[in-house]
């Protein structure tokens, strides 16, 4: 018997993974998260939005299993269609995190190698590179790529295992705006064609509104859910959406929520 998670739209879909009352205190005494309740639903593009240091990256690392919660629990769905096992998670870090000594293809091949896959994974690697538009750079070394191309390679690596859940930790924060918009658009196209569930972390209001089907606004340290916003604008979203009045309105609403979250004081 599993507890039902309250949802704003009242849909009965069980979450892929749910954090319940999760808290994280680091060894140096910093409380990064406190009482975080969060449910990730299948197929959604969920963004954790908050100021720097609000623990949103920590929440993502806890979902990935890279960090253990100090309090609370992480519950994974065991429903037949929604079940996600540990090896069906893809993770994209804030930095491209490529092995500098290996070619782009070898970097993308790494997850399959580590999983002990047979050597004939060339087609899967090539397909993954093709998807992010790096097919002709398979034999280049990371240092020969631009920042945006490195991030594309990093995304190709995360997708090569065909993960059901893709976790992205401020992947475009270090990129210039033009590259960032391009990658935002390409990421949305990938998300729509591959039908993945994405949990995306950012501190950019504009990025979160453009990408997400749902935004969770978090308070500053210790991080917890301040407000949940459903972005109902229809996909596909493109440059027209980015310049629309609807987008501007959603950004204003989200900015206000973020400003309120930052101003929010923990009740005594």
């Amino acid at each position, binding site marked *: 018997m599993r507890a039902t998670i309250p949802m704003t739209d009242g849909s009965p879909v069980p979450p892929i993974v749910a954090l319940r009352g999760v808290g994280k205190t680091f060894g140096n005494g910093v409380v990064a998260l406190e009482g975080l309740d969060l449910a990730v639903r299948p197929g959604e593009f969920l963004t954790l939005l908050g100021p720097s240091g609000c623990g949103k990256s920590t929440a993502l690392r806890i979902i990935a299993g890279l960090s253990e919660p100090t309090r609370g629990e992480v519950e994974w769905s065991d429903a037949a269609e929604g079940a996600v096992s540990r090896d069906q998670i893809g993770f994209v870090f804030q930095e491209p995190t490529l092995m500098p*000594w290996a070619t782009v293809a070898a970097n993308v091949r790494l997850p399959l190698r580590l999983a002990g896959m047979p050597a004939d994974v060339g087609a899967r690697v090539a397909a993954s590179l093709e998807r992010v538009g790096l097919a002709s750079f398979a034999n280049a070394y990371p240092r020969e790529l631009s920042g945006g191309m490195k991030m594309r390679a990093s995304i190709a690596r995360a997708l090569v295992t065909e993960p059901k859940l893709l976790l992205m930790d401020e992947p475009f924060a270090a990129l210039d705006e033009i590259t960032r918009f391009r990658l935002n658009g390409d990421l949305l196209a990938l998300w729509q064609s591959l039908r993945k569930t994405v949990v995306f972390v950012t501190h950019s209001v504009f990025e979160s509104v453009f990408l997400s089907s749902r935004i969770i606004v978090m308070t500053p340290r210790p991080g917890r859910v301040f407000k949940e916003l459903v972005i109902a604008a229809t996909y596909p979203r493109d440059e027209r959406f980015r310049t629309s009045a609807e987008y501007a309105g959603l950004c204003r609403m989200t900015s206000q929520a973020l400003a309120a979250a930052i101003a929010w004081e923990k009740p005594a």
Partner: protein
Amino acid sequence: MSARPASDDRQGRWVLDRAARILMPVAVLLLVVLAWATVVHVYAIPPYVLPGPRRVLETMWADWDLLRDSLLVTLVTTLEGFALALAGGVGLAILFNQSRLLEYSLYPYAVILQVTPIVAIAPLLLIYLPQPVAVLACAWIVAFFPLLANTTLGLNSVDRNLADLFALYGASRAQVLWRLKLPSATPYILGGMKIAGGLSLIGAVVAEIAAGSAGAGSGLAYRIAESGYRLNIPRMFAALVLLSATGIVMFFVLSLFSYLVLRRWHESALARDR
């Protein structure tokens, strides 16, 4: 008048820079040798005090059979000591990296081995070990610590995010070592090799000199000691030149090797485009 395209100009400067890098040291060498020859000639210094460069070359030619054999002995000792140091230093660093307890137990003794002057250990080793083994042991002792220290540093310098990535995909200890830690440590190991190459030559020379005074040995350093006793100063110089050349060649071979391994990806091996 200066209507040349900028790219031509840059190319020209690059060629000049390259040429200067090779020509300038050669010019300095020629100047020093010339000054040396002039001083010997002008002051009519006898060869048993200071032989001229020409005399040294003639001696090298005349004594080549003897010197060549000695060069081979020293070279083989140095290379063996270097190879053992490479295996021992990198191997021990890997063991330390896998087992903290082993590191705690043995690292202090590796340091003791390093900080005790080799000149002081050599005579003792010569008492307890056969002479060739003692010389080899000395070459190994001095060369092994830089490799241990550098490899240890390299294995601990793994990118945190990459380590997380490997953990996320459930990499085994062996996979982390082989696919992550050792590649990360490669630039450090290569740096250690450059230091260790010169040091293993020093270790071999020190032990040969110590052994020479005990009456045995046939390496280049032994030739220098022996020629000194016989006041055969030109041969001393000839052996010294060969010894020095051995060190230079080792350094260049190791530098080239390092460049070839790192040239595609590491900052140290990349040409800067300004």
